[in-house]
């Protein structure tokens, strides 16, 4: 995932985008635009995802077998490529969520810690 040369939005950490995509798909299959919309809303637009970087990330997740893609009809009856979490992807989401929580907790703990003695 880190091989991407595109710049994720200024506030997106490496690897975070994958986690957000997996989370977005955990609510059910969606096309790329849907994923972008969900991230936008869920983060209150705080994370400016360069939408272009979303697609290589999606394809890489597909290559890893975490999501599966299929062409289907969109809500306005257009052909769109829908992504769905696979069983492997669901497990990955759980692991990464746990990792992220532990990581964030550790950073918060550090940020709130008193001065060095």
């Amino acid at each position: 995932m880190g091989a991407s040369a595109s710049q994720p939005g200024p506030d997106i950490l490496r690897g975070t985008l994958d986690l957000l995509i997996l989370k977005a798909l955990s609510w059910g299959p969606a096309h790329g635009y849907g994923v972008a919309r969900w991230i936008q809303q869920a983060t209150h637009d705080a994370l400016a995802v360069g939408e272009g970087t979303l697609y290589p990330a999606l394809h890489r997740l597909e290559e890893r077998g975490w999501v599966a893609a299929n062409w289907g009809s969109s809500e306005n009856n257009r052909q769109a490529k829908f992504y769905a979490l696979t069983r492997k992807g669901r497990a990955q989401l759980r692991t990464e969520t746990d990792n992220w929580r532990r990581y964030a907790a550790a950073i918060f703990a550090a940020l709130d810690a008193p001065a060095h003695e």
Partner: protein
Amino acid sequence: MARLTRFRQMFGLEPRRDVDAELAFHIEMRVRELIDGGETPERARHLALQRFGNYDQARRECVAINERRRRRMVRADFFAELRQDIGYAFRMMRRAPAFTLAALVTLALGIGANSAIFSVVNGVLLESLPYRDAGRLHVLQMRYPDGARYFSLSAPDFMSIRAETHVFERVEASNGALVTVTGIGDPREINASFVTHGMFEALGLRVALGRTFSAEENLPGRGNVAILSHGLWQNVFGGDPSVLGRTITASGRVSTIVGVASPEATMPDDATEAFFPLTMDQAFDAATMQGRRNEFLRVIARARDGLGDAEIAGDLARLAARLETAFPETNGGLGFTSVPLRESIVGDVKKPLLVLLGAVGFVLLVACANVANLLLARGSARHGELSVRAALGAGRARLIRQLITESLLLGTIGGVIGLALAYWSTQALVAARPADLPRLDAIGVDGTVIVFTLAAALGTGLVFGLVPAMQATNADLLRGLQESGRSGGGGRRMHRMRSALVVAELALAVVLLTGAGLLIRSFLALTDVNPGFQPGGAMAFRVSFQGPDYQNGDQVRTRVDQLFDRLRGLPGVTAVGATTVLPLGGGGAMLDFAVEGAPPPPPDVNQEIAVASVTPEYFTAIGTPLKRGRFFSNLDHAKAPRVALLNEAAARKWFPNQDPVGRTVLSGGPQTVVGIVGDVLQRNPGQPAIAQMFVPHQQRTNRTIRIVVRANGDPLALAPSVREQIRALDPSLPVAQVMPLEEMVRRSVARPRFYTSLLTLFAAVALVLSATGIFGVMSYSVAQQSKEIGIRIALGARSIDVLRSVVGRAVGLAAVGVLVGVTASFALGGILRSQLFGVTIFDPPTLATVMAVLLGCAFVASLLPAARAARIDPITTFKQT
């Protein structure tokens, strides 16, 4: 294909188009949303793209990822299918054991024979000689004005070339001799090489122990040192590492052992058992005229890197011209030539070996045709199965791939069995030491042979598999499902193809049989040549008189007389004689020759005669008749007038229509011709006798003689008592090469015998394979036409008519094969010409025999199918349909 198809369904046809559609959908959705939010279409589009970021890069990355996935899947699919195909092929092979066995035996024989012959060719002709940069090593030879070549150079010529060459970085000489080693167990004769000290460096020979020679050791009186070959060290000194510093007594000369050669360090003659420094006395003088026509050195030169043959030839021509100017009396008209070392070792076996390789290749082609035929027959049996697969969606390419996989698998298994056969047969071949092939020990199954076998196996699989695979999957396949009860739609065409294959097989067999036939006829002609002596009832051995007891000729002569007295006393012995050169052992020393009173030869003709020394009873012992005059007697002793005998070839050459008896000839001195003896074979039966002169051993005594004992009964039974008598006389005399004369005759044709037996074997294999080919085709066609035949029988055809028609068709096929094969034999016959003796390529008896054998084979092979056809019961046949 399954996974790839699924992939296509997911992506559409093209990953690129797929990505474009996906990205376009995104932009379009965003634009619509922005327009719904009140933006103008142009601005909405602008904003959407801005939000998207680097469109091209995203697209590129997506395409790259998808391409990568696709390639991976294609590969995985390929291997999955291959596994599936191989598994399937194994099942098919198990299901048809008779077919599988027939195909594998055929292939294993064909490929195994090829591997075996290839390992001989590889070892003898291809593998590098065991010398450093062997490609740069050359043997230097003399070329006389009449074109004759001498393998040796004289010492002054050698020194001149060594000093003045521009193309060789090293020029080294050796002189081989038999020496008698005494003081260690029984006296024994060994092959010694007397070498210039640089020989080791020039060839890249290494010592396992000690050192090589120094330049000083080539000086007169300084050379009492020796280097043992690894073999001699092992056999005589038991591999004792403390051998350095000990002495070895060779022909009375005591030398200190200073080194032991490493196991692979051998001279090109491959026989050297000990090395001694060549004594470079005053004869080795580049400035002298003395001794320039006394050639006794074998000269090996290492060319500078990157020089071509033309440059080497040019330099040698320049040197020859220089010497001709400086020494016109000795070097007028003489030239030097260089022969690559490999050529000098394997030159005369190269062509026959390549012919054998070609012949064995033909055998493989016959095997291919045979297996292709089997596959064609099976193709029709599998018609139904393939049709089902085709109906279930397997494409033609997929089915061909499946069938080719099967034939490649057959080829590979056949190749592995063949490799095992080759391994055993080459070991047996080397152990049998046929025909003193050079470099025999380099023969064996090695990496190159394995690669060759693998390539042959896969190539074979492709060759015999492709046509049947195309045939079995032709356009009728889909229709085949409805027809599966009947014979396949392509039956007639298939039958034609199978007949063509059989004709090809037969033609190849004819070529091989013709070649074998010609070689057999040549071999018979060779063994039929009158040897000029009577090999039966006589045996020969070699004795050398060396050491302190044999300082002069008188001592040797006395001892020979004593020995003869003892040998004549043995029971059954009828004659005892000695010579320096036995029949089939060469002609003898080449000496200048002139007839007194005859005009001298032109200056550019080197008039020579082969000279051997013989004792009075020698010709009686070998059984060669006197044609004129008298044999030698005991009165022709050392102090008597010099006399000589000539062979008939010499009499014809120098005394046409004259009587030589009583005339004087000059060769090292005047001698009177007292008689003419019959010609004997000198090298092998294929070469006519050259002019030979015999002088009494009493008058020209040699230390090494070959004694012939003729006796009633088995001559070899005498060997123990002969040895006993010699030991009783002088225990230090080494006896070597004890052999019946018949064995020598047998050995002189060992190489033709070797080539002939192999080619005959190949031809026999080809014949058997083609006979089974005919049998297969006829059986198949009878099975195919059983209904037709049944109708004919029902309509009143007699069994004999049916029989005749089937046999007639087989013989007809064979006749076409014979015609093609005979034509091909004429075209290819030239290759064999140099191996032939006493027959021409167009040899009616051979051709007639080959034709008869082939047609007879076809006749016999078709009898069984014909009988089956004649027994067809029309009622049963009709019931089956």
